[in-house]
Structures are given as structure tokens and as C-alpha cells.
């Protein structure tokens, strides 16, 4: 090394700080670099070592070349791997494109760097040789360099180990001096080394813990901390954390848990880069942790108290800012304080609220709790004020406060704030209700008093309400100043009052009395008094307290009520009059009315024009009055009543406006009450009561109401009488009908079954006389086998009040039976007797007809089918070859014969189907079919028949697209029937035409013949069953007389219509089938 090379020295000094190699190394380096320089004839050779990822020149031999040294970083960066780097010519080497400092170096044109490899293939640095000119190293030159590099590596390795050893020693001595334990852990093998101090921390000696492994630590660590420790370790292994740093609990030998702080790092790794050795320190931090926990628990405790929401706490600093507020305080103040008090802008006089007295008046700022405490430095107690927000919400608060010196020596002010809003509101409500109560007493209708228990009832206190009761002011009565209260009590009631009070005093109870008070204006007022005695200590009466109510109005109401009750009773008596003749009932009612009203004369009159007729009356015995007696209307007070069309009352005629009335002149009737009568909505007459004496009291509203109601009763009674007359007439009419009815009618007693009444028709069917029948019992005419059915019908009658219709038989007088159909209903006569009305229809004829019909169907069926069976059977055997081979022409003919006999057979079936048709039991198979092809088949099948009659069947042009919705078989049946009729009634050589047209409502099909036509008198019966125009035709044409009935039935059930036009020139049958006939088919499935 050349000591003059100042720039080199500078660099070397820097390296020396980083790596202190043993002094012996420098001599070795000098020798080795020299060998390289001399042997290879290179001007520069030097050694660089790796320190913290960078190359530093460790030893240099050669000239001082400032450009080189300053660009050494560039040189070192060209080394990419642990391989030898050989640059033969810096100017042409493509690897140096990005290194202009090397490329354009004025001195160096070529260089080589040989890696220095230590233990575990760890790269220690490089051995460099540099040339001024381009150069390619020879093989032996490269070998030499490798050898030199190996020697340098070995020297560096040795030197480094020595350095580490001395460092270790030094560090150990430092650690031993502290109270820190150390550990080293081989991650791969689990071997662990602790120092003595480590063991001491957990209360052991190292020898006690033998054999030591990582399990020693695991077994002592708190199970809850293992996971966290593992996580930290992994993070460190992965490079996420620079150190493993963990605080965990460990079990001390004495059984307690201690806190330890472990710190460590990976000091070496395996070749695969896996952590190998981890070492670190181990400190006891138990005291530290305990202190921290204690602090934490104290803080939590205080926080819990503050946040218990029982009281609001706030802390305000010298500036008037809130530094703390608990939850309750936040609620009370309506503020949300930030977590950090320093960030709070809120102050005690926050402009968001307005502080007032609780009653809303202004609260002086200098009296605010904060202002007072901060000024006086003295505590304050129970300062009450309200806090109000702009939205109208407010709270009443009570505040206590005190100054407080905090831990930093600053003065703060602590306040406890109580929300007393509810309390304030309650007090207010109480005050209000007191005021209300006072005003209530003042406004009470009664008189309150306090008086002495003496003769005069000497008043000590009397409320003003005595004035309306007596007409005198309260002051008159106090101490009997002007008059005593006794003086205004009605003389007749005084004794009763004294007795009641005396009794109450004796019994120590209240009294409740009613008495009259003589009012100043001369009227009598009714008073109701409730009072009680007040006794002194000796049990003597000290005074009387009480309450007097003016009940004058109540009293008169009660009298009116009594009046109403007697009116009600009278009306009740009147409406209870029953069972007698109308006139008698009216007379009785008038007597009751007369008694109630206290008027001796009562009349129900009928008025026709100007005539007044007495219908019913009640009068003193000496009165000359008769039913039916007439007067001129103008001579009765009733003309007034009729004119007024309402109740008229006259209390005293001589003083009334009617005193000049002719009635008064004639009869001197002083008092009168009358009302118009209406019967069935028409004016009938009047109901009136009168007396020769005038009324003591005026007619009251109740009495007017009474006569109105009585008038209504009279009207109803008269209406009932009319209705009875009408009913009687109606009964007579019905009786006539009953007797004339062609259907039997009977009336039976519900309980006994006995016949009560019956008509002529029933007698005729049964052969009994009326008297005979009435004497019969029910089972004399009804066969016993119908008992069950009868019972069923009776049950129906009980539940629905009706029975039937049902069929049974009746037994005639001669013992024979006939079928009947019965139905009827339950009725009740006036006396409540239950009766059964029955309609008994003689259905013999109907049954006979049904029988005939069924017989016919059965006979026709059998008689027609038997020969057809023979015909078709024979033909089928022939055609089937049972009798041997037939000629072809014969087969054809037999086939036609068979086809038509089958058709006839089908036709018979259809005739029988008529039954089903009429009963609606036919199953339809509706399809949309082409009219054209339907006609084609029909014509083909009917052609032979037509030919036999020498008639031509013709089809007019039919639209091939024309379709109808029909049952094909039934359709053919109809058309065939009509065609065959047409053919039969045509003359030889005629043409029968078939036509079909599309019309608005459907398809219209016409069958046209040119025969002699249907006789006009037969037109109405064409479609009737078994109807034929000419009975002899049956034989001639072979018809059954059912054909057209079946056609009509089928067409109509298919939803179509059938009609005809006929004249002597021919007949046209028209059938119209509507479009969309599907529903019928769908319904029938």
C-alpha cells in the first residue's frame, strides 16, 4: 500500500470503520496483491469486501487514479454473480453499455474481478486486477488469480471470526452486567441456550431447568400468550418485523405469573434461507405491567362512575372551554364533545344555547356557576337555571361546582349538573291544579257555610251563592247581622230540619235534608243540604259545616216525571184492553184517559163534512149522550182542533180567546184538550176530553203527548176494525176458490193429523162425503208403507215450514188406491193452533201416460229389433262367407242391404234415444266438420232409398270450406230423417234438393222437396210426437211419427233451430246451426 495515495487512504479509512480486521491480514493482503501485480504484469490489484450489501475497497495496491476510485461504484455494479468477471476491452464490451464512466475511462481498458468465497458459500468480496490496455487472460493466469483469491478469502474468514469472538465476549459482559436474561434458539433442532439470569427471572437455577430446550420456554409461558408470541415470531421470520418483540406472562417457580419482555432476531439462516439461529434477550417487566394495569383499572373505575349516567359531570378549563363531559352531561347540554378535549370549541357560554332563569327571565352572566367559581375559587351549590335551545327545547338544571388543581398544576373547574326539568314541570302542574281547584270552589253552584249549632243557625261563614237562593246577600246572615238563616226556612220544614241535624249530631254522621227557602221575591225555592257536625276536644259540637244546593228545578222536574209515569201507566192500561168489541174497547180507553187527565167527558168522534158524530164516549152518569148522536161540528170545540190540525188545549174557557165559542155557550165546558184522528192516512174525526171546571194547573207537555199517543192507539183500533172487515171479505173469496179448485186441498191439524177442512176436488177423487172425510184419521187414507216417507216430509215441515212435493198413494173409500203428489206448508191460526195446508194432486192420469210411454218404448224396441236382427244377421252371414262364396255383384247388393238395415237399426236406437234426449242424458261428440263431405256421405247412403222411390237427390253448390260444429252421427240422423220424409212425400221423378249456406248467425241447411206440401191445419203439430197428418200415411210411408220430434230435439240440443215453409207446391225444412258449438260437446265430455 502506498501511503501517499491520499484518495485511496480516505476510502480505506472509511472501510476500516466498518470492518475491523486483524492487523495481520494487512500484511497478507500486501503480499498477495504484489504477487498478482508482478506475475500478471498489471498496474493495479486490490481487494474489496462486502459490507451491508455494498462493496468497499479493503486493500489497494497500485497508482492513485482519482477517476477510477470515484467510479469504483460503477465497477462494483458490473458484478452480477458470484462468478469471475472478465472484461477484456472496456471500449468494446457490450455489458458496459450503461456504464459510460468505465467505457470512457482514460486509464483502464480491461479488468477482472474474482469472488472471495467464505464459509457456507458466503461471498466476502472480490479480488480485482486492472490493466491500461485490452487484455485476454491466459488459462494459467486465471488459475493464479483463483489461487490468490482463495488465499485472500481464507485470510478474511479467519480475521472475521476473530472479530466476532471478541464482539461476543464484549456483549456478554455487558449483558451480564444488566438484569437481562439471554437466549439462543436453534430453530431447526430446537436446541436452546439460556443464561443463568433467564432462569433466575422465573425463579430457577439453570441446572434446575435441565434439560433445556424450546419446550422449557413453552411449558412456562402462559397458554393464552403462546398464540400471540407465535404470530410475532412468524412475522419476524418472514421479514415483516425486524425484531421479534413480545410481552408475555410466564409461570414463576412460586406459582405466580410474571410478565417478561422478549426481544430477538434471526442471526443466521440455513442454505435454503430458513431461519437457523435466533437469539435475544429476556427481561422481567412484571412491576411495570402491574403498574400499568392498576392505572388502567383505576381509569376504568372512574370512567364507569362518570358514565353511569346518574349525574352529569363536566370539567371546564380556565378559558371556559369544556375539557371533559360524561354521557349524561352530553345529553343534558345537548352537545357532542370530541374525544380530545383540546379539540373542543364548546365553551360554558356556548352561543348555541341560551341560559335563563327557570321561569324564562334573563339569567345574569356573572351569576353563572362557572363565572362564580372561577371568580371566587370557592365551591357553589344548587345554582338553578334553565338552558334553552333555538328549537324551543329546554331543560331546568341544578349545578354544583368547585375548582380543581389537575395533575399538571393547572386549575380546572368541575361541575355536577342535575337535570331537574321533570321536577320543575311537576311543581308547575301542581300549582296549576291548585289554582284550578280554587276556581272550582268559587264557581260551584251551591252555598258553603259554617254555622253555630243554635236556634238561628248563626252563620260564621256563608258563601255568596246564598244570594240567588234567598235573594239576600251573604253578609245579611253573618252573625245574624240583618236576619238569621232560620228566618228564610219555610215554617213547615223547620221542625224536620232540626230533628235531622240533631239526629246526625247524636250519631256522629252527616245529614242530608230537603227543605223550602222563602225567597225575597216571594217564590219558594227548594234547597238540598248536606252537612256535618265538627266536634271540639271535649266531644262537644264546635260548629256545623255544610253545603246547600238549590234544587228547585230538580224538584219540579220530579213532579213532571211523576206526571209522565202516570201518563205512561194510563197508556199502558189502554193498550192492554183486549179481546172485546171495538166500541167497548174505545169506551174503556176513554174512561181511563178521562181519569188520567181529570176531565170527566171523553169522546171519539167521526166527522163527515160539517157533521160531528159520537163514535164512543165516557161521561158522568147524568149526561145525556148516546153513541151515534150527531152535532153540528161548529157547535163543538173540535172544529178548533181540526183547523189547528194538532193538539189544542184550553185551561179556562172564560178567560181564553174562545170564550165566545157556541160550544161554551151551550155546554159551559171550561177546560178542553183535543187532537185530530187519522184512520188509514185519512182524517177521521177527533179524540177530545173536556170538563165543566177549569184547570187548576195548565195542561202540561206530558198531557199533550199523552193524548197524541192515545189518538194513535184509537186510530190503530179503528184501522184494525176495518182490516177485520176486509179480511172477512177476503176469506169468503178464498173459500170460493178453495172449493172450486180442481186440485185437492186439505187442512190438517199438525198435532193430531186430523182433517180440519178439505175441498170438493179431494172428495171427488176419494169418493167420501165431507162429513165422512172429516171423521177419518190420517192413516185411513194413507197406506202405512209411506210412513217413513211421511216422517221425512214432516221433518222437512218442522225445519222449513214446508214439505214436498212428493208422491204417494191415497186410499179411496172403496179401498182402491190412486197416486197423488203432495206439497204444503205449516200455518198457525189466530189461536196459535198449528195447521198443515196440503195441495193434493191426483196424478193417476200422468202415471198412466208415463206407463203407456214406457210400454211403447219397450215394445217398439223389441218388435223392431227382432226382425232387424234377423235381416242383418242373415246378411252378415252371407257376406261373411258362412254360406259359401258369392258372386261379386251379389256381394255388392248384399253390402248395400246390410248397410241400410244397419242404418235402420241405428235409427231405431235413436228413436229410443228420444227418451234420453228428452231427459238430457245424451252424450254428444261435437266436431268441426266440412258440410260438403258430410253431405256427400249422407247422399250416398240415402241414394238407394231415393232410387226406390224414383226420386233424385241433388246437392246445390256448397263452399268446400264451409264447416259446422256438430255431432256427425246426430247430424246425419237429422238430415237422413228429413231427406227420407222429403223422398217419401215426393212424386216419382221429383228432385229433392239439399242446400247449405253461410249466414250471419250460423250455417243454414235446407231440404227442399216438390211434394204436395203439409196440410195447413197440421202445421202447428208438425214437430209433435206421434203426430202424422194422415193416419193412413203410417202404413203408406212406414213412418213412426217420431222423426220430426227427434230432429227438432237434436237440432235444439245442438243449439240450432228448425222450421219449415210449406205450400201445395212443396216443402222446405230449414235448420240453422250456430257457429262454435263446442261448449255442448265439452260439457258432455
Amino acid at each position, binding site marked *: 500500500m502506498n501511503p501517499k495515495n491520499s484518495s485511496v487512504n480516505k476510502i480505506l479509512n472509511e472501510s476500516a470503520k466498518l470492518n475491523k480486521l486483524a492487523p495481520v491480514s494487512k500484511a497478507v493482503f500486501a503480499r498477495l496483491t504484489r504477487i498478482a501485480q508482478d506475475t500478471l504484469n498489471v498496474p493495479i490489484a486490490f481487494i474489496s469486501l462486502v459490507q451491508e450489501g455494498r462493496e468497499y475497497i479493503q486493500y489497494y495496491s497500485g497508482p492513485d487514479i482519482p477517476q477510477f476510485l470515484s467510479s469504483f461504484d460503477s465497477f462494483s455494479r458490473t458484478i452480477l454473480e458470484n462468478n469471475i468477471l472478465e472484461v477484456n476491452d472496456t471500449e468494446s464490451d457490450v455489458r458496459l453499455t450503461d456504464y459510460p464512466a468505465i467505457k470512457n475511462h482514460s486509464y483502464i481498458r480491461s479488468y477482472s474481478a474474482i469472488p472471495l468465497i467464505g464459509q457456507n458459500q458466503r461471498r466476502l468480496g472480490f479480488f480485482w486486477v486492472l490493466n491500461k490496455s485490452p487484455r485476454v487472460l491466459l488459462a494459467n493466469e486465471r488459475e493464479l488469480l483463483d489461487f490468490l483469491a482463495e488465499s485472500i478469502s481464507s485470510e478474511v474468514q479467519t480475521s472475521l471470526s476473530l472479530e466476532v469472538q471478541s464482539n461476543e465476549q464484549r456483549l456478554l459482559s455487558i449483558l451480564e452486567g444488566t438484569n437481562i436474561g439471554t437466549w439462543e434458539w436453534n430453530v431447526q433442532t430446537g436446541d436452546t441456550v439460556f443464561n443463568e439470569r433467564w432462569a433466575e427471572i422465573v425463579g430457577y437455577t439453570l441446572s434446575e431447568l435441565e434439560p433445556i430446550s424450546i419446550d422449557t420456554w413453552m411449558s412456562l409461558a402462559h397458554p393464552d400468550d403462546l398464540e400471540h408470541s407465535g404470530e410475532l415470531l412468524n412475522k419476524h421470520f418472514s421479514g415483516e418485523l425486524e425484531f421479534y418483540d413480545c410481552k408475555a406472562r410466564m409461570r414463576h417457580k412460586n406459582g405466580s405469573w410474571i410478565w417478561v419482555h422478549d426481544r430477538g432476531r434471526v442471526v443466521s439462516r440455513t442454505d435454503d434461507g430458513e431461519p437457523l439461529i435466533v437469539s435475544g434477550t429476556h427481561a422481567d417487566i412484571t412491576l411495570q405491567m402491574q403498574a400499568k394495569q392498576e392505572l388502567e383499572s383505576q381509569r376504568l373505575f372512574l370512567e364507569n362512575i362518570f358514565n353511569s349516567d346518574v349525574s352529569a359531570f363536566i370539567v371546564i378549563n380556565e378559558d371556559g372551554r369544556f375539557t371533559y363531559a360524561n354521557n349524561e352531561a352530553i345529553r343534558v347540554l345537548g352537545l357532542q364533545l370530541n374525544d380530545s378535549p383540546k379539540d373542543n370549541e364548546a365553551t360554558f357560554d356556548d352561543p348555541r344555547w341560551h341560559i335563563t332563569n327557570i321561569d324564562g327571565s334573563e339569567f345574569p352572566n356573572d351569576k353563572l356557576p362557572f363565572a362564580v367559581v372561577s371568580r371566587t375559587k370557592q365551591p357553589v351549590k344548587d345554582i338553578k337555571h334553565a338552558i334553552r335551545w333555538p328549537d324551543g327545547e329546554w331543560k331546568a338544571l341544578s349545578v354544583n361546582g368547585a375548582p380543581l388543581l389537575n395533575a399538571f398544576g393547572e386549575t380546572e373547574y368541575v361541575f355536577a349538573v342535575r337535570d331537574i326539568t321533570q321536577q320543575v314541570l311537576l311543581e308547575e302542574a301542581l300549582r296549576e291544579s291548585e289554582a284550578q281547584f280554587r276556581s272550582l270552589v268559587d264557581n260551584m253552584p251551591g252555598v258553603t257555610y259554617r254555622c253555630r249549632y243554635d236556634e238561628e243557625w248563626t252563620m260564621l261563614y256563608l258563601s255568596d251563592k246564598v244570594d240567588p237562593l234567598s235573594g239576600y246577600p251573604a253578609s245579611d246572615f253573618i252573625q245574624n247581622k240583618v236576619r238569621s238563616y232560620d228566618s228564610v226556612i219555610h215554617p213547615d220544614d223547620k221542625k224536620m230540619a232540626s230533628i235531622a241535624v240533631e239526629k246526625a249530631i247524636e250519631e256522629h254522621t252527616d245529614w242530608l235534608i230537603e227543605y223550602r227557602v222563602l225567597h225575597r221575591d216571594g217564590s219558594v225555592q227548594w234547597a238540598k243540604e248536606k252537612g256535618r257536625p265538627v266536634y271540639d276536644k271535649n266531644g262537644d259540637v264546635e260548629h256545623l259545616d255544610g253545603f246547600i244546593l238549590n234544587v228547585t228545578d230538580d224538584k219540579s222536574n220530579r213532579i213532571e216525571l211523576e206526571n209522565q209515569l202516570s201518563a205512561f201507566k194510563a197508556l199502558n192500561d189502554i193498550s192492554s184492553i183486549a179481546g172485546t168489541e171495538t166500541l167497548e174497547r174505545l169506551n174503556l180507553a176513554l174512561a181511563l184517559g178521562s181519569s188520567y187527565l181529570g176531565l170527566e167527558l171523553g169522546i171519539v168522534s167521526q166527522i163527515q163534512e160539517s157533521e160531528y158524530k159520537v163514535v164512543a164516549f165516557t161521561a158522568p152518569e147524568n149526561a145525556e149522550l148516546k153513541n151515534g148522536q150527531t152535532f153540528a161540528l161548529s157547535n163543538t170545540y173540535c172544529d178548533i182542533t181540526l183547523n189547528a190540525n194538532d193538539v189544542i188545549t184550553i185551561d179556562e174557557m172564560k178567560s181564553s180567546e174562545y170564550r165566545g165559542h157556541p160550544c161554551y155557550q151551550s155546554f159551559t165546558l171550561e177546560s178542553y184538550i183535543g187532537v185530530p184522528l187519522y184512520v188509514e192516512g185519512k182524517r177521521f174525526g177527533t179524540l177530545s176530553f173536556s170538563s165543566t171546571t177549569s184547570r187548576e194547573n195548565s195542561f202540561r207537555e206530558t198531557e199533550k203527548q199523552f193524548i197524541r199517543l192515545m189518538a194513535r192507539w184509537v186510530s190503530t183500533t179503528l184501522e184494525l176494525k176495518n182490516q177485520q172487515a176486509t179480511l172477512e171479505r177476503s176469506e169468503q173469496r178464498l173459500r170460493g176458490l178453495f172449493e172450486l179448485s180442481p186440485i185437492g186441498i186439505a187442512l190438517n191439524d199438525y198435532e193430531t193429523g186430523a182433517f180440519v177442512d178439505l175441498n170438493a176436488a179431494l172428495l171427488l177423487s176419494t169418493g167420501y162425503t165431507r162429513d165422512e172425510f172429516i171423521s177419518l184419521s190420517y192413516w185411513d187414507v194413507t197406506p202405512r208403507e209411506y210412513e217413513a216417507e211421511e216422517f221425512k216430509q214432516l221433518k222437512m215441515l218442522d225445519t222449513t215450514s214446508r214439505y214436498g212435493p212428493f208422491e204417494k198413494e191415497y186410499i179411496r173409500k172403496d179401498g182402491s188406491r190412486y197416486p197423488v203428489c203432495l206439497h204444503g206448508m205449516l200455518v198457525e191460526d189466530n189461536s196459535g193452533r198449528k195447521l198443515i195446508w196440503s195441495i193434493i194432486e191426483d196424478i193417476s192420469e200422468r202415471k198412466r201416460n208415463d206407463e203407456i210411454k214406457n210400454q211403447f*218404448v219397450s215394445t217398439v*224396441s223389441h218388435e223392431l229389433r227382432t226382425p232387424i*236382427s*234377423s235381416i242383418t244377421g242373415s246378411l252378415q*252371414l252371407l257376406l261373411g262367407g*258362412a254360406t259359401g262364396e258369392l258372386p261379386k255383384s251379389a256381394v255388392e247388393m248384399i253390402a248395400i242391404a246390410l248397410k241400410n238395415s244397419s242404418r235402420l237399426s241405428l235409427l231405431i236406437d235413436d228413436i229410443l234415444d228420444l227418451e234420453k234426449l228428452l231427459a238430457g242424458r245424451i252424450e254428444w261428440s261435437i266436431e268441426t266438420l266440412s258440410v260438403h263431405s258430410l253431405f256427400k256421405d249422407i247422399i250416398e247412403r240415402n241414394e238407394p232409398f231415393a232410387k226406390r222411390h224414383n226420386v233424385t237427390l241433388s246437392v246445390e253448390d256448397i263452399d268446400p270450406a264451409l264447416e259446422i260444429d256438430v255431432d256427425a252421427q246426430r247430424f246425419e240422423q237429422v238430415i237422413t230423417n228429413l231427406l227420407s220424409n222429403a223422398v217419401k212425400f215426393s212424386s216419382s221423378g221429383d228432385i229433392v234438393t239439399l242446400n247449405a249456406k253461410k249466414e250471419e248467425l250460423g250455417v243454414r241447411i235446407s231440404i227442399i222437396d216438390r211434394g204436395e206440401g203439409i196440410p195447413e191445419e197440421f202445421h202447428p203439430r208438425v214437430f209433435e210426437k206421434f203426430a202424422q197428418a194422415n193416419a193412413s200415411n203410417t202404413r203408406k210411408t212406414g213412418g213412426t211419427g217420431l222423426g220430426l220430434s227427434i230432429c227438432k230435439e237434436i237440432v235444439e240440443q245442438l243449439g240450432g233451430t228448425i222450421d219449415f215453409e210449406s205450400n201445395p207446391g212443396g216443402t222446405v225444412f230449414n235448420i240453422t246451426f250456430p257457429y262454435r258449438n263446442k261448449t255442448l260437446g265439452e260439457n258432455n265430455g
Partner: protein
Amino acid sequence: MTKLERVLVVDDEQDIQAIAKLSLERVGGLETLICSSGREAIDKVQVFAPNIILLDVMMPGLDGPATLSILKEKGLVTNIPVVFFTAKVLDKEIEELHSCGAFDVISKPFDPMKLPSILEDIWRRSQ
């Protein structure tokens, strides 16, 4: 018995007799005995020992149901199915025929070409 062999036909109508005979013998290859009345059938059934009896309903004297009732009473048809042969077609009538003990009912008109196979079917069902 594995095969239908003998049929007894009871019908008063000569035409039907002829057709039935031709049908059963020629078409069906069955041994056929024709009886013109119920009485005759009662007399001959035991000797002929038919596999099946075809019995007309409407006959003078003993009609079909009456004949069947006597046959049953005498125990002559214990294992022989009796089939009614009728021109009656009302549902009610068919129902009545079934209820008096007929194994089946064949309605007229019938197809004589198919009668043997129909009887064959009925006989098989009766086994």
C-alpha cells in the same frame, strides 16, 4: 276344460235360431243345441251339458228371467254361465237382467260373424 265346445241357444224366433245355429256351427265350429222355449231348455240342459247358455229374454210362456230362475233353482247351471240375448236396450232393463243372475247380456241386433268370439270371451271370463 280348455276350450268352449257346446252352446245351448234358447230363442222362440225361428229366424234367430237359424242365424245363431249357422253362426255358431259354421263360423265358430261349436256344437250347438237350439231350444225354442225355456221349458225345452230346462229339459235338455243336463243331457247336452253346454259350456254356455244363450237365453232370449222375451219368449211366450216362460220368459228368459223365469227360465234362468228355474235353472238356478234346480241347480242345473251351477258352473254354466248364462248369457241373456235381448232386444231391450233401456239402461234400466239391462240392469234388471244383470240383477237376476245373468253372467252377461248381448243385445240384438248382433253380428253373427262375431258371435262365436264374443261367447268365447264371455266363457273365458267365467272360468
